């Protein structure tokens, strides 16, 4: 049940309890209870809209920044990551395998703002040895959704 509820919420975001209940064949109370529990346990950490900002007047750019750093005794990269994560400009942050150590997604109003953040805040952070910044030029798919999906169904209206 948990997996089915999460499947619906992670796919659609905002779905009423009784709608989920109708789809899964369980009671609304059960759904509400399960969701509350998952929120309390931190399994569900939030709800938000998936926005294609490029269609709005709002200026918003993203960059992927690969960060190499020096791991610290006992804590590895945790302290460095916690420090970087506190900046509002940081949209998401992961410890990754591969050449770099941390993968930081940074959000800003324009390229300059991101460049300044990297130059003034990120690169000079104690423990950071190098950064490599890739600006997002166009988004094709976000959070499992195709952005420029071409409607292509040729289904007949009635078929046997």
């Amino acid at each position: 049940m948990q997996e089915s509820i999460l499947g619906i919420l992670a796919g659609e975001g905002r779905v009423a309890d009784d709608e989920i209940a109708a789809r899964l064949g369980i009671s609304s109370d059960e759904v509400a209870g399960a969701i509350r529990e998952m929120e309390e346990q931190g399994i569900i950490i939030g709800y938000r809209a998936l926005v294609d900002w490029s269609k709005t007047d709002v200026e918003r750019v993203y960059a992927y920044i690969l960060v190499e750093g020096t791991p610290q005794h006992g804590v590895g990269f945790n302290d460095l990551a916690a420090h970087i994560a506190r900046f509002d400009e940081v949209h998401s942050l992961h410890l990754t395998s591969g050449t770099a150590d941390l993968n930081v997604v940074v959000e800003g109003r324009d390229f300059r703002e991101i460049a300044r953040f990297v130059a003034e805040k990120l690169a000079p952070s104690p423990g950071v040895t190098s950064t490599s910044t890739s600006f997002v030029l166009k988004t094709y798919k976000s959070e499992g959704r195709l952005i420029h999906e071409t409607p292509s169904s040729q289904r007949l209206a009635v078929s046997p």
Partner: protein
Amino acid sequence: MTLKRTTQSRISRTVQDLKPSGIREFFDLVMGMDDVISLGVGEPDFPTPWRVCDAVIESLRNGATSYTSNLGMEELRVEVAQYLEGKYGVTYDPASQILITVGVSEAVDLAMRALLDPGDDFLIPDPCYVSYGPCVELAHGLPITVPTHAEDEFRLTADELAGACTERTRGLLFSNPSNPTGSVMRREHLAEVAEVAKDRDLVVISDEVYAELTYDGTHTSIASLPGMAERTLLLNGFSKADAMTGWRVGYACGPAEIIEAMTRMHAYTTMCVPIMGQIAAIEALRRGEDDRARMVAEYDQRRRVFVNGLNRIGLDCFEPMGAFYAFPSVRSTGLTSEQFAKTLLTDQRVAVVPGNAFGASGEGHVRCSYASSISDLREALARTETFLERLDAGEVQPDE
């Protein structure tokens, strides 16, 4: 039986007598209208999973554009054999007991022509998929309809089957799960049918194109029942569960004698299934399981919402356990199936298919496909509810 031609027509007697499907008429009606929510669609609303398309694109780059063996690509037949062995524990020899066909459609046609002499009977359920009767007729046989009933969720019963058999009955052709009713025959129901088949020495053609779309556990193939593999032709394909209607791939598995006869005709008339479709099918069998599971989970949610909705607004509907159809009764409205479907379409722009398009026993019901988005299904329910209220209040008169 004589096949005499009427006066000047250039068209054969057999084809002159072939009636167009009742679905066609509805299709024409719907096409003339805007803003219709169609629940008349007998195919998935999902596109073919991209991994399948990608496998075919890659094969085209590598020049796979030739004919294949008449039976179909060996790799595909081997995959089909493994799939059926794993799913039902029935074994088919890929070299002699499996034929890859242009959808289940071609397999039905070949089977009928392989098994029937002019004037032979073949049993089909009533209601059933629209092609069965015509395929029997095109093979110069007589389709004998076996009535099924709402109180049995439209399952075949031993009594009705035995009652319909004559000296000339060669076999039975049915689909499980059922189009149009969404009904599923479980092992115990199939066992009844198997007894009659063995008793009357019938060949059973089991169309299992919706087998993977079964919503509470596993599907049973009648071929897996004791003593049935030797008299069963199992048909399946990729159209429904793999969302591959346009690729046109299916298969027939059964006794080597029947497969050989079908293959001889297929070799002359079709040669082979297009290689692109066969490559798509191989990919679907090898790596399609997760995609199928995702789509099944989605259909299942729609099924619950839709069927509960029908019952709530007053159209009685048993819980359909397979395919993607619901088959509610419209008797409470006092309208015939056709009046209901036409009036609902003109008054509220919701398209459903009258149950009698699938046989006389479908009268009093309509077929609704829930292979549509939940929001469309909800909107269709809301419009249908409005329609029922307007009928009740005398604000709408039945179309003729």
